[in-house]
């Protein structure tokens, strides 16, 4: 694996749209070619090299390419968008759409990310060491195709509208989450190790939510079924199982309706 190191040298006046920071765009290129990749500020097009020092070289393929991004990235959007393989390490906070529509590879953010990280993600892994903003692993606005595969882990808290229209894959949040979890979801698994507020699983058809802490208000469309022993993300415990959203359509398997499942840990 070859490594390209980007270090931000000037901050954009507005926000920098840098969907070219991916192993796919870098693969097969030398530093002096990478600096010419396009980035946008508003409607103006610039070169990546206008904002970043670039050193090292990319591998022959995306899978053989690692990108390390240093400096304050809190105004840089779309890092790792649509990447299919390889690795990105961002050593800072990053702005919106980190790893959006990602298909493979790994992104590590050693900081916080703003909204829409992992939008429409199909595969690969995003590890966020800090907090995540709203709409983590959700669908693009208006779309019904949310996260379909891969894994997102968040060390800290996540915002609202986590996993909207999620269809597959896994999201693990180490801390707390804001309102609206797995709205309209038809699959996938969300693990919340801290507390949740309200509106979990609204219009959820299938999939799983695990909450280790408190839930302020349970949706009326979820019904308590029974207590069960669960082994989730390496932690064993006894959970109360709820099924819902009872107001939604549900497909049947062998005559039995399949519901979305919400597990809440029972404090021993």
């Amino acid at each position, binding site marked *: 694996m070859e490594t390209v190191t980007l270090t931000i040298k000037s901050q954009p006046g507005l926000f920098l749209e840098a969907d070219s920071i991916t192993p796919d765009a870098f693969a097969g290129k030398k530093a002096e070619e990478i600096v010419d990749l396009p980035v946008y500020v508003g*409607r103006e097009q610039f070169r990546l090299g206008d904002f970043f020092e670039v050193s090292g070289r990319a591998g022959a393929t995306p899978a053989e390419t690692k990108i390390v991004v240093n400096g304050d990235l809190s105004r840089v959007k779309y890092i790792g968008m649509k990447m299919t393989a390889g690795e990105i390490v961002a050593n800072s906070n990053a702005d919106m759409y980190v790893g959006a529509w990602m298909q493979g590879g790994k992104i590590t953010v050693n900081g916080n990310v703003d909204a829409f990280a992992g939008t429409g993600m199909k595969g690969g892994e995003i590890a966020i060491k800090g907090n995540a903003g709203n709409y983590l692993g959700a669908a*693009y*606005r*208006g*779309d*019904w195709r949310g996260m379909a595969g891969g894994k997102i882990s968040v060390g800290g808290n996540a915002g609202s509208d986590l996993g909207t229209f999620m269809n597959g894959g896994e999201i693990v949040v180490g801390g707390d989450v804001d309102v609206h979890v797995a709205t309209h979801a038809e699959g996938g698994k969300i693990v919340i190790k801290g507390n949740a507020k309200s509106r979990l699983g609204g219009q959820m058809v299938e999939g799983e939510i695990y909450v280790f802490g408190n839930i302020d208000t349970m949706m009326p469309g979820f019904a308590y079924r029974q207590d069960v022993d669960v082994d989730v993300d390496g932690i064993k415990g006894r959970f109360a199982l709820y099924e819902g959203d009872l107001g939604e*359509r549900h497909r049947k398997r062998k005559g039995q309706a399949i519901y979305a499942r919400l597990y809440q840990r029972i404090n021993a």
Partner: protein
Amino acid sequence: MAEFLIKNGFVFDPVLGIKGDVADVAIKDGKIVETSALRSPKVIDATGKTVMAGGVDIHAHVAGPKVNIGRNFRPEDKLFNCTAGHGIERMQGGFSVPTTIRTGYNYAHMGYTTVMEAAMPPLYARHTHEEMRDTPILDQGAYPVFGNNWFVLEYLKNHEIENTAAYIAWLLRATKGYAVKVVNPGGTEAWGWGLNCENVHDPVPYFDITPAQIIKGLIEANEYLGLPHSMHMHANNLGTPGNYTTTLDSFKLSEGIKPNSKFGRAQVMHHTHVQFHSYGGEGFNFESKAPEIMDYVNTHDNITIDLGCVTLDETTTMTADGPFEHHLTELNHLKWANADVELETGSGVVPFVYSANNKANAIQWCIGLELGLLAKDPMRVFLTTDHPNAGPFIRYPRIMKWLMSQEARDQQFDAFKHKDKVIEATNLAGMDRELSLYEIAQMTRAGPAKALGLSHMYGGLAPGLDGDVAVYDFNPNEPYAPDDIEKAFLNAKHLFKSGVQVISDHEIASNGNKRTLWVNARANENPQVMRDIKEKFLRYYTVTLNNYEVTGHYLRNPHVIEVDATQ
């Protein structure tokens, strides 16, 4: 105004009967002229290229409230699909519900110059006209919907043709409309009660009238006025297996009625998107009844149809057929918009993904093409997708490819997941007909222009017609692959609209001088109808008459077709 001489192209023109001969086309002062009338023309070398009149689309949903609902509730339709403005080209976006700007440009790139908006809710005519005004290049008109309108239901219940005609004339003038559109007659009104009208004899609740009475009455009123276009119909029971009998029953309501029009059309009923109305069988055993439908169409001169071909794309369905859109959202569980338009109509919008892996969608694809290939008279059968319902209009060149090439159809069959079952339920695999470019010109130019009553302006290259001419990078006399057809007709090399070069060497060269066509039918004074209109506005409408009519700045460049229906 500039003069152009388009030299040495292979010309296909049903109006002049030219079938690919090398000929020159001359344009002067916005019109086609004899080549001898030119003094110092700009010469366009069309050697080795195909030359046709500008395309005419008789049925598409491109402007108005439901199109805009589609745009608003589908931001994902524009995702990664927008281009910034450059030169004279303005910013554009969208695929199945493109912006007005892209609508104009994309039609122009396909060589189309006239596009009719197929369903205008009268109450929202101002919105529809605002969008048409913002659509560059194209000449456009819009069809107000009448089939669920309270005035019409009340008059036709008692077969009051003269009153219906007076109301139609008033509404066409108020909305600056072009033709009489009917969508699921009675069924959309029934939807207000959570019901539908599933066949032509299924009564409309409260109004106690049948779809058959509405259809026949509107045909008669249309002929009473002698409008340029015929009554334009989307029958009951769209999209339901077994519905072809309803379609045939609807066709038969035109029997014995002769056209009364000075505008050269021969039909009294145009039935739109017939693909959606040609289904046999039941439930999952749904099958093509295109041969039965085309047997009828081929033997009845007073009917025209358009295809409504499924293109196997992700698209946005939208129709004044409110109950049908509810049926669709129950089927695919995607988002749904539903609207009721006071005394006039309703509508629904649902995104839809037509997939080659879905047996039903593949059968629908076959049916649309079967209708086209079974057509004995391509002057009465027009190429459409009911844009965007069965597919976006930008796929017309792909449909041309499928109609013109059995090899292209075989390639698509091979891509179907349920190929054998699809072949079993349809007839397309056994058809070896390949349409000629002349027949394509009939289906996309001369035919629709004639059916619209606009053959004095559009659809051909005869001197006196509008200077609407497309030049395509396609040499019909050299070997070509099926995909070459699509590529060429998607990207006209040159396009002239009303004598202005709007595309030069594949690039937009002018935003044109688009016109809005509307029909001013002058009927006898009818105090009763005027009284009824005033009363209904006072009692029921949320707006006053003063805020209803389309006037002034809503119509920047109107072109009025005058009809004298006084007697």
